[in-house]
């Protein structure tokens, strides 16, 4: 053949508004699919609410000792439950549902359409962030109204930390699909990672052991919990004084940002669209 082949198609013009509408429709579809799948919806919404109620009712307002000072137990748990909500809504949910979609060929089918990868992932990310924000509002409202937890002192920072946490755990969720071989093993592998993370995080009980503390300090979930706690900034009893955190500290946010970068890098480099062995 002598005719040379052109290697690229002429790009058609795509106005930003229509690209945003595309992402919006994708995110809406994601939320519908989650909401209509009873197992996924239940896992995502019911578990955090269940944990919130159990821990708050068990502990009541008896004080909990942290490294920084004493705080009411319900007040202590709320940021942790919000962190847990972000973890399940993003990492657990995404790792399992993306693996399912990969193994059943849905991802490959999507790849055969003009929907760009970034739009597919942005739609998923936005839907996860929306769920994380809704869970933050619902758990906070319940805690404030029913368990005497003080209103958060740094609301914009709180929203910012939830967004950063959701982005971080979404990236880690996509990255996890790389090591999950098939949909049968997805829940087991995800839980093996998630449960130690949770118990080392300070979500269910404060970490007052310095060895565990230094381990949990490099993990994203403890940092998220701390950043959330400092955004709620409840009154801390330190000796005779009552102090408040002045908002999330830079170190915690930096660790989250590093995990976000690591997760994104692994996700972008190693993500598979198709089942293995094809």
């Amino acid at each position, binding site marked *: *053949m002598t*005719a040379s*082949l*052109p*290697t*690229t*198609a*002429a*790009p*058609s013009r795509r106005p930003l508004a229509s690209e945003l*509408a*595309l992402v919006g*429709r*994708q995110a809406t*579809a994601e939320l*519908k*699919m989650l909401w*209509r*799948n009873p197992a996924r919806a239940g896992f995502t919404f019911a578990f955090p609410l269940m944990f919130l109620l159990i821990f708050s009712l068990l502990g009541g307002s008896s004080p909990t000792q942290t490294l920084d000072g004493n705080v009411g137990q319900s007040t202590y748990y709320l940021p942790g439950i919000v962190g847990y909500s972000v973890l399940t809504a993003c990492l657990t949910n995404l790792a399992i549902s993306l693996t399912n979609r990969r193994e*059943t*060929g*849905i991802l*490959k*089918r999507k*790849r*055969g*359409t*003009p*929907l*760009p990868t970034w739009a597919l992932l942005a739609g998923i990310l936005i839907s996860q962030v929306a769920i994380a924000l809704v869970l933050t509002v619902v758990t906070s409202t319940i805690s404030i109204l029913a368990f005497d937890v003080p209103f958060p002192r740094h609301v914009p920072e709180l929203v910012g930390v939830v967004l950063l946490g959701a982005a971080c755990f979404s990236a880690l969720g996509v990255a996890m699909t790389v090591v999950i071989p098939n949909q049968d093993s997805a829940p087991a592998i995800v839980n093996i990672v998630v449960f130690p993370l949770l118990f080392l995080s300070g979500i269910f009980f404060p970490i007052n052991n310095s060895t565990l503390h230094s381990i949990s300090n490099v993990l994203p979930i403890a940092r998220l919990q701390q950043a959330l706690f400092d955004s709620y900034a409840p009154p801390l009893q330190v000796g005779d004084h009552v102090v408040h955190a002045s908002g999330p500290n830079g170190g915690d946010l930096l660790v989250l940002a590093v995990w976000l970068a690591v997760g994104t890098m692994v996700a972008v480099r190693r993500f598979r669209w*198709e089942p293995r062995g094809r």
Partner: protein
Amino acid sequence: MTATIEVRNLVKSYRQVQAVAGLDLTVESGECVAVLGANGAGKTTMVEILEGFRTRDSGQVSVLGVDPATGGRALRERVGVVLQSCAVERYLTVAELVRLHAGYYPHPRDVDEVLEMMGLAGKRDARVRTLSGGQQRRVDVALGIIGDPDLIFLDEPTTGFDPSARRTAWAMVENLRSLGKTVLLTTHYMDEAQHLADRVVVMARGRVVAEGRPDELGGRGEGAARVRFTLPDGVGVADLPMAVTPDGDAVVVETDKPTGVLHELTGWAVARGVELSGLTVTRPSLEDIYLRLTGEEQR
């Protein structure tokens, strides 16, 4: 103007196995081409390279004038893909899913019109997971054509369909052809290729071993006809006016001049006052040709 699909000397290996081994293929605009071949003949690998899912080891490939490996979104806006295995989101309704996909394309077809065409109008508000396997497959095909593509890849589109669903799918493909779309389909079914395709391409061991019109493939048009009948009672092979070969209970004459043979044979029978029961004249079926071609290749 270049052809819609042009493939020259395409090669693709998986580890030691050469799935596609120097394949050439041209599909002109508006043509419907069926690719036949056994499992492992390289059909799906070839189609997935054309679809942009796989990279090639070597060779030249052009789809709608661009290289599918780098064509990206602009190319995918003009191509419809229906994969071998059905994969659609299960928790959306039929209309929601088709509308979602319509939004991926710059100039999609009307959603209701496509649902009508695929026989899914009555199921438009049903969740995909509640549909039968055949209905889900039709949703899959609907997603392949909703973008009003110029070129459609159908990888074994009717495998697992019941006969009436296959007829519906065939009518859909004919409808696409009447709109001037180019269709490349792979299939195991000879009748499907015969019914739908302008041209049949037979693949074996990663190469094209024959191609042609369904009624001419492999010399089918002018090849030997088989005149077959049962010997009348009391008549031996030696009594016949020509040489025959036994074939089960009957005998067969292979000839490229069936008219003369029939004339001689029936004249002889009438003169003798005997009946040639079970008399038939057949051309080899597409299936016979296909088995011969792929069988030769395997020896």
